[in-house]
């Protein structure tokens, strides 16, 4: 009889040492949920409640306002250019890094990640320094004997503006979303190795066929994941875009800048109405992200 009691007590001691008592568990769950409520759930709920504070009518008037529409259009243009370009770049960079060996690969990896560690305000500032009226482009246009005189003349004649105009906004958006697709695809393609592509080549497929039929199906979930994160950031970018946009209402305001403009006008409900669109998009992003992770785990 004694051995049974000893084993029981040993088992109890074992359980006490490998899990926490229920009180501690509940306490920890409580602390975690309280912290998350304060910093995540309350802000999220408050966006939607504030948006409808003046009723549905006000909400729809605000989001169908011409200024709001022009901001939505500009955000779509900037994201519509930045995301596909960074997508092509991401695939190219991942192909180079994962499928070939060359010197300086680690330096290239670090450089690709660089835009993530640059403050959004500085991301905008660098384009002002290059393309602004006082920047390199301004110097070039005012030079007495510029290189490629026809280019300088053409730019002057057509009054091409980059800063405080749409091209600057597009460039800043490209910069801040630069690494998203690449950093999703590089580890994925490195883990997959090159044997499948080599097999396809041995069986007679050409380069494009190998890419479309072998590589792309293998990386499609990673690519989609990267595109979703890239789009979310492109649509929501604020700091970089606010430096280069000049904030001309109806012309160079993106959706986040339009929210700021409404907020600065003390039109808080209006600001939250437009913000609720972006918050909804953030929720859709999180939903898609969770779904892709789920699908990827099942595969």
């Amino acid at each position, binding site marked *: 009889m004694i051995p049974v009691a000893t084993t029981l007590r040993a088992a109890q001691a*074992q359980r006490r*040492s*490998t899990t926490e008592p229920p009180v501690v568990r509940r306490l*920890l*769950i409580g602390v*975690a949920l309280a912290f*998350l409520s304060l910093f*995540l*759930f309350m*802000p*999220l709920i*408050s966006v939607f409640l504030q948006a409808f504070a003046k009723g549905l009518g006000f909400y729809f008037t605000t989001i169908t306002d011409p200024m709001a529409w022009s901001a939505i259009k500009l955000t779509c243009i900037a994201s519509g250019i930045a995301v596909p*370009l960074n997508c092509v770049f991401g695939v*190219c*960079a991942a*192909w*180079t890094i994962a*499928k070939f060996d060359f010197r300086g690969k680690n330096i290239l990896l670090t450089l*690709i990640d*660089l835009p993530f*560690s*640059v*403050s959004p*305000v*500085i991301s905008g*500032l*660098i*384009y002002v*320094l*290059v393309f*602004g009226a*006082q*920047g390199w482009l301004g110097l070039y246009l005012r030079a007495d004997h510029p290189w490629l005189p026809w280019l300088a003349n053409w730019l002057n004649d057509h009054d091409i503006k980059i800063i405080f105009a749409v091209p600057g906004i597009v*460039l800043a958006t490209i*910069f801040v979303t*630069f690494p998203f697709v690449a950093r999703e695809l590089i580890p994925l393609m490195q883990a997959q190795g*090159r044997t499948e*592509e*080599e097999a396809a*080549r041995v069986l007679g497929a*050409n*380069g494009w066929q*190998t890419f479309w039929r072998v590589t792309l199906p293998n990386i499609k979930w990673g690519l989609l994941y990267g595109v979703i994160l890239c789009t*979310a950031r492109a649509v*929501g970018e*604020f*700091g970089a875009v606010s*430096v280069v946009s000049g904030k001309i209402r109806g012309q160079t305001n993106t959706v*986040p*800048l339009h929210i*700021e403009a409404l*907020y600065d006008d003390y039109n*808080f409900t209006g600001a939250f109405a437009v*913000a609720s669109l*972006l918050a909804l998009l*953030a*929720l859709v*992003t*999180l939903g898609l*992200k969770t779904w892709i992770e789920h699908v990827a785990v099942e595969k």
Partner: protein
Amino acid sequence: MAPTNKRTKRIRVLPGFKLTLGFTLFYLGLIVIIPLSAVFWETSSLSWHDFWHTITMPIALASYRLTFGASFLAAVVNAVFGFIVAWVLVRYHFFGKKLVDALVDLPFALPTAVAGITLATLYSKAGWIGQWLEPLGIKVANTQIGVFVALTFIGLPFIVRTVQPILEDLDPELEEAAASLGANRWQIFWRVILPMVMPALLTGFALAFARALGEYGSVIFIAGNIPLKTQITPVVIMGELDMFDYAKATAIAEVMLVTSFAMLLSVNVLQWWANRHNTTSLA
């Protein structure tokens, strides 16, 4: 033999190396390297004395103190609570766990301007949280505490998402072994679990800290941007830009850039250390 050799070589090497490397370097140079080098070019037009004078202006010094202090404090708070959140998500079961797990990434997905106006409203005098803090004499909006609150919000997912996978992979046999050798739960946590998670926790801390240093959108609405008091460094840069003083703005930007490159380097070293640490401890 020569043709066969040529053929095997052609088959073994996948196509597109020159094309993809060429495009990668071209695009990287055009979008990232050349514009970033403009910062160093622009400040080279300043004399050393002017440069030093600009980056040590009282308004700049106050902003470094606030930016570093609030970022550090926010990262510390996130390290503690983020660890608890990761722990709870990995080890326990509770209602709505999957939803909570998905929502942890909200600060990544929510545009910073939206986060900014929301936090400013919540913590204002009449806001949901502000109205409870006001009678206690705690003012958050338009104070340095506001900066800290915004930076805590944006840093939250970094710790959870770096610690969570390590906790999931932790071998339960290690804890059982420690228990069978007579360690109690508290000793196991401090001596077995925490040392294993520490590299990930430090990496998450460094990532959250680095992100907070450059943050702009979520901070400006709640901070009030009072010079010498609640202006973070990006706001100081923005102020100089609004006055078209590009040299000053760029000099301060260079301080921030060098700092964040140093942070990036230390994160890489930390991650390398974490990988080495994990392989040796599991071997």
